[in-house]
């Protein structure tokens, strides 16, 4: 991207500062302070009697790294997040493209249909999936009809969790992509068309590169959401399926191990952040010219 020369005068900078000031204060108080506290907790020691003992130790982090169970949970979380993000991109793009290029009066209806699921909380939707995927649920009884006695229970599998997260995250992806695709001049596609590009090559050479920043934004958004998903893995994954957020909650509320819970929180956050940063850097390097 070309850098725009800054045209702001100092007076405007001052006004902007005054306006941004309170907002910055709120962000500091509500985000940085709890994080700092959490960081401090993660270095404390667990104590059976008082639950938390002032200390300065890395043992909580070491415990996470050393125990294959925890590493496994992180790995499960990562794979679920990556798979659902990829699916969101693949499924979301055609839908977003269709809506973005729609010219009929049904466009606002289509957008509304995408937004509608967001009105229903993730817990309620997970319950819906339980009804669909659980024992005696819709899928179970239907497959029982086809193959007598051979019902399928998909509940409490990684499939159930993935589809649950996918359904929650897809609207965010579609809305993000729709905005980006709408900002791509439809004339560019026509130009490609008139120059002899088949629809496939037009997509590959023109639409995709120009939509890439939007794909990155949407991808990062749903990746973060998936990494931190709580209700869906809790309700659809069951007792044996572990993801980071429910595990973090259990360490905190059930086991009362605040220092370890804090360490898990930090590991989750740092993993998410570093992957996000890495993907952003990669994209920037690839598309420096444009």
């Amino acid at each position: 991207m070309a850098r725009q020369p800054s045209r702001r005068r100092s007076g405007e900078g001052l006004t902007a500062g005054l306006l941004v000031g309170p907002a910055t204060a709120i962000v500091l108080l509500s985000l940085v302070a709890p994080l700092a506290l959490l960081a401090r907790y993660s270095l404390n020691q667990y104590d059976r009697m008082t639950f938390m003992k002032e200390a300065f130790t890395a043992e909580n982090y070491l415990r996470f790294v050393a125990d294959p169970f925890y590493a496994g949970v992180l790995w499960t979380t990562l794979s679920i997040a990556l798979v659902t993000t990829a699916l969101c991109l693949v499924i979301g793009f055609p839908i977003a493209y269709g809506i973005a290029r729609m010219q009929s009066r049904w466009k606002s209806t289509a957008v509304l249909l995408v937004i509608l699921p967001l009105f229903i909380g993730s817990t309620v939707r997970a319950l819906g999936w339980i009804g669909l995927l659980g024992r005696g649920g819709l899928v179970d009884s239907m497959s029982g009809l086809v193959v007598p006695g051979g019902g399928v229970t998909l509940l409490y599998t990684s499939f159930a969790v993935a589809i649950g997260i996918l359904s929650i995250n897809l609207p965010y992806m579609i809305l993000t992509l729709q905005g980006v695709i709408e900002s791509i001049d439809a004339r560019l596609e026509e130009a490609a068309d008139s120059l002899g590009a088949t629809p496939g090559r037009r997509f590959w050479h023109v639409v995709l590169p120009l939509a890439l920043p939007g794909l990155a934004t949407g991808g990062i958004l749903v990746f973060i959401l998936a990494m931190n998903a709580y209700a869906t893995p809790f309700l659809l994954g069951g007792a044996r399926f572990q993801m980071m957020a429910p595990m973090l909650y259990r360490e905190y509320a059930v086991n009362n191990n605040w220092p370890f819970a804090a360490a898990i929180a930090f590991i989750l956050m740092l993993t998410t952040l570093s992957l996000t940063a890495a993907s952003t850097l990669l994209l920037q390097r690839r598309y420096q010219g444009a």
Partner: protein
Amino acid sequence: MSTRPPYLKIEALSKHYGSMAAVDEVSLEVAAGEMVVLLGPSGCGKTTTLRLIAGFVEASAGRILLEGRDYAGLPPYQREMGMVFQSYALFPHMTVAQNISFGLRMRKMPAAQIASRLEEVLALVKLEKMADRYPKQLSGGQQQRVALARALAIRPKLLLLDEPLSNLDANLRQEVAREIRRLQRAAGLTALMVTHDQDEAMAMADRLVVMDRGRVQQVGPQEALYEAPENPFVARFIGHSNLLRGTLRDGCRLRLGEGVEAQLAQRYNLAGDATLALRPERIRLLPPGDPTPARMTLAVEDATYVGAHVEYLLALPGGGSLILHQPTTGLAGAARLAPGSRAGLSWDAGSERIFDASDRALAAAGPAPALASV
């Protein structure tokens, strides 16, 4: 045109949006190597016509034949028509060279051939030094040339230009217009251009197509449109005409209103409502004492010296004004007619044009009887 079949033939092409006809039974024939310009006010369906030909919109009715082949149902990427968009539509993520060679790459042309074609086209539009720049690092005029080069590079069967000059500074337009014309001629390309700018159209076209409300109003070379407009719309749109409505009597007297009558130079086989079209520069202002009998006498409202001519506004019955351009050659020092004074007007037979009540041009039946001297 010769007896050869036309290179491009458009037959009763229509495009309806709901109940509105954006393009209404447009028919047109274009010879190979010809530059035809579609001219008309904004919203008259020029762009839609071009987009129908390019294949971006599907026609509601009609046919498009190029070299005798029906293009119905052929997707745009198989039509081999080079389109230059009003907004240029350059690929922002590609360099000038990548933009220009895009169409060649889509044709899977060998790299060496692409390189030589690219070099050739870059030289043609004089952008050799800009090959590695991105579109936003270019001026408007340079972007325009890239858009043109990109369309030329594929050696299109038809070059389509949608208002190619409208986003350029006024002082660049003429230069770019000549440039487009030079490139089109040099490549022997058949081109269809769209504009709402009359001067631009006159300067660039071999033939013009005047459109209004989706319909073709008249097709012809510049001179035919200017000298023999077929309806009042064309008379006013090409070079501005005064349109005077009145009642025709005796075939040669047009009553315009309360005590004002125009004595026509020719006779017409018509009685009743008619419209007289007169061009401002084709009406003579008779100086006081001139023995020439006046065809019409009106009161001067205003006179403004604008350089090449003096623009007079003369009061018409019913409230309108007649515009008259008096050339300033040989006029230095001559007194101008003051507002309020009455002016005798005259014009030649070839300068008047009469339309009937349904706006059709009438042919003259012969000269009108000579006017009596005042």
